[in-house]
């Protein structure tokens, strides 16, 4: 033996490997004020969350017949269950509800594969269908009047169905209009630029609620006698124009972030204006503003509840209108929780989708 082996000194393991107690001490009880905060927040969680969970699940009544089955100390989910048809479809005739069901199924077939590993070609065609075929098919199915389908007036549409229609049409119409406005605002032609600036600044400066009022109350006053537009159509147009203005400014942010060199390189290759925009500028600009677009889309989805004030019963309106039923007693919490849950599912879905899209389109380029 030449040199005696010297063992290395013992080192403490990394913080994450010191077990539960180590983690607790590190994160929750590291200082005296941290300990106090932990205890206070812990107390608050126990005193609020535990009764809430108990109310919503353990003491809740899920099955039974009518209000008399409900227990006072738990949630009465029978209410939501028995009124589900109204919450989902509004006054849409019960025997015809298979039509929106098919439309919703088509919607699900279009949307769900986008969240899972699916061949790009299929995703592309589903997306094209979602932007073109689905609105048409949805309209034919839900409104009826063609192919021997019994017509259903839009005044009978309601519930989650109406919310989804408003949001979907608003989103797929506001995207292209907003993009066109953003390009127009950066146009070198003064007239086009002027029109776009005025349009954007006008719609952005007016609250959505005012636009909806204008569309439902004021617009008929200006139209000649006998000319009427469908109330839902008016709301849709109002929402679309309003959201287009917001979308335009989001997209413009992306356009401004594209370096001048990209425009020049595209020009130098001989690409014309529309091809430069479509092939070079917009793919990059829209990618940059995906978080902003997702933001706008989610806020649009939630803004659809404002149609309540012009007498359309979206999901919030539908639920709200049933809460005053004396037979059920106080079911406000159940009703609003159900609405919140529906909104959360869709908004969270959109948020996740935008994250996926961002990741997928990342090409490792940082300017």
């Amino acid at each position, binding site marked *: 033996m030449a040199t005696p082996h010297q063992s290395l000194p013992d080192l403490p393991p990394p913080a994450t490997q010191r077990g539960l107690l180590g983690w607790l001490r590190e994160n929750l009880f590291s200082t005296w004020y941290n300990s106090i905060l932990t205890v206070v927040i812990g107390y608050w969680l126990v005193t609020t969350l535990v009764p809430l969970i108990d109310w919503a699940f353990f003491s809740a009544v899920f099955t039974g017949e009518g209000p008399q089955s409900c227990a006072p100390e738990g949630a009465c989910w029978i209410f939501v269950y028995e009124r589900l048809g109204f919450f989902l479809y509004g006054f849409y005739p019960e025997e015809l509800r298979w039509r929106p069901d098919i439309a919703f199924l088509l919607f699900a077939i279009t949307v769900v594969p986008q969240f899972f590993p699916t061949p790009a070609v299929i995703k592309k065609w589903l997306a094209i269908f979602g932007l073109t075929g689905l609105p048409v098919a949805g309209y034919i199915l839900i409104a009826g009047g063609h192919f021997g389908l019994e017509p259903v007036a839009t005044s009978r549409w309601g519930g989650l169905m109406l919310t989804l229609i408003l949001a979907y049409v608003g989103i797929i119409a506001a995207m292209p209009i907003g993009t066109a406005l953003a390009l127009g605002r950066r146009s070198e032609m003064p007239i086009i630029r002027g029109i776009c600036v005025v349009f954007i600044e006008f719609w952005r400066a007016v609250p959505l609620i005012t636009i909806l009022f204008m569309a439902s109350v004021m617009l008929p006053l200006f139209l000649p006698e006998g000319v009427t537009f469908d109330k839902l159509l008016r709301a849709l147009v109002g929402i679309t124009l309003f959201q287009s203005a917001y979308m335009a400014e989001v997209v413009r942010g992306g356009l401004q972030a594209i370096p001048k060199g990209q425009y*020049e390189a595209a020009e130098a*290759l001989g*690409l*014309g204006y529309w091809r430069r925009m479509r092939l070079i500028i917009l*793919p*990059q600009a829209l990618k940059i503003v995906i978080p902003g677009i997702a933001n706008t889309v989610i806020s649009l989805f939630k803004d659809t509840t404002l149609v309540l004030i012009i007498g359309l019963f979206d999901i919030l309106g539908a639920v709200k209108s049933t809460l005053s039923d004396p037979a059920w007693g106080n079911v406000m919490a159940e009703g609003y929780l159900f609405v919140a849950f529906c909104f959360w599912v869709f908004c969270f879905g959109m948020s996740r989708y935008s994250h996926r899209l961002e990741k997928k389109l990342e090409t490792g380029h940082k300017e």
Partner: protein
Amino acid sequence: MQENNATVASAASNEDIIAVQDLNKWYGEFHVLKSINLNVRKGERIVICGPSGSGKSTFIRCINHLEAHQRGNIVVDGVELNEDIKNIEAIRREVGMVFQHFNLFPHLSVLENCLLAPIWVRKTPRDQAIETAMQYLERVKIPEQAHKYPGQLSGGQQQRVAIARALCMQPKIMLFDEPTSALDPEMIKEVLDVMIELAGSGMTMLCVTHEMGFAKTVADRVIFMDGGEIVEQAAPETFFSNPQQPRTQEFLEQILQH
């Protein structure tokens, strides 16, 4: 003018492919190009040098109308460059350009960068465009990177892709706007080698560059610009050994010192 006897044999013919007459440009009040006159023969290789702010980049950017001029005539390959978008696009199809900062399209792969213009502007069938693109990528020695994105390549590689992208349009003229200025020193050579090879193939080239070695090797003519004017132009051997103007002598002293 004296004919060259540079290292890379000249292919210049007697036919003019670019004719610039009395070119003037202003940025607001600032007179950036002052009555520039220049005829470039087919196959000629011209190096333009000069201090920064001398208008050399602006000048070559006028040739494919990335910058608009206010007075004078530019005729490229028989087409008069004016505000007519048809003429501008016709000229851009025949004039390739390489930029200081490469300006590759980061959302497209290397191959797609090279396919874009041939497919959309020249309407080349995709298969044929791919074949041509791969030929040029081989010529700039990076065929193996074809499916990577620009962000994954080094600066030198990106600039070589940018050269290939411009060549895929099979242009008659190539403009280089300081192609090596944004590169790390060890990457300059790989780009210059590609440019020297290209010069040997008979391409008409206008290069704004400070690479005087490159100028000596391939240029038929070196142009020195200062203050928006062409101060002096000569074949490289005359230009470097016997500059006539004091301003040129001063500039050459500055850049050849180190």
